[in-house]
């Protein structure tokens, strides 16, 4: 095999390899990862003592989620004037 022929074959192999290298299929769309909250933790509203608040009529036992929800629902329903008028 002559040197020229060897050079040609090597060149062709390189061109082939680089040429096919561009044909690879890669994801074109970036998938964003949802971030995670990095700040300070917050207290749940029902973990507060209702007596600690001034000027409030809402009552629940400290730490009682259902009690707090029921107190908030009572105020929520007060926004319906149809029931207030009846």
């Amino acid at each position, binding site marked *: 095999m002559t040197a020229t022929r060897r050079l040609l074959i090597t060149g062709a192999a390189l061109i082939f390899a680089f040429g096919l290298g561009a044909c690879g299929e890669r994801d074109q769309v970036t998938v964003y990862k949802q971030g995670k909250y990095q700040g300070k933790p917050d207290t749940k*509203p029902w973990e507060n003592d209702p007596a600690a608040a001034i000027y409030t009529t809402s009552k629940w036992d400290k730490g009682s989620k259902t009690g707090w929800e029921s107190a*908030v629902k009572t105020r929520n329903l007060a*926004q319906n004037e*149809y029931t207030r008028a009846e």
Partner: protein
Amino acid sequence: MARMKFLCDAERCIECNGCVTACKNENEVPWGVNRRRVVTINDGVVGAEKSISVACMHCSDAPCMAVCPVDCFYRTDEGVVLHDKDLCIGCGYCFYACPFGAPQFPQAGAFGLRGKMDKCTFCAGGPEKDLSKEEFTKYGSNRLAQGKLPACAEMCSTKALLGGDGDVVADIYRQRVFKRGKGSEVWGWGTAYGKPDQPKAAAGAKS
């Protein structure tokens, strides 16, 4: 409990700005910042003028939360979207992402320097000790921790602005629509995808 939501009834809102004032007063919001505002369309056109009160809608899939580069947003168990001001860098990405223009930026210095973001907290304060001075200074009043609902909704004179548990709010609005015979067209399929099959208002309905 479902999620905390606001609903503004455009048929009832009289653009009194009582909600804006209530919010400003309750939270001692700084000058130049409006956590809530009233938007009016067809201003001055008789019969076509409509107003709604807009603030943070506490989205279930909040865009502000998605774009924040420092991840300072969080969602409480009640579905209220809040943020930590100690982390906020005031970049303004959330303002561009929000479809309601809710994030506000107080001027923090000369040359229009932007301060940390401020927005409606559904009167739920923030990540500081509940009902503390620090919480009030940074985030405003924490009415949820007192078993109350947002001041804007509770103060609304015509009860156009409803706030609270989404299910309860929807029930109140539904009853209202049945009583007056119209109003359901403001949401649902017709609003989202056009109105080819919009049901007609009940006979004898008043505006």
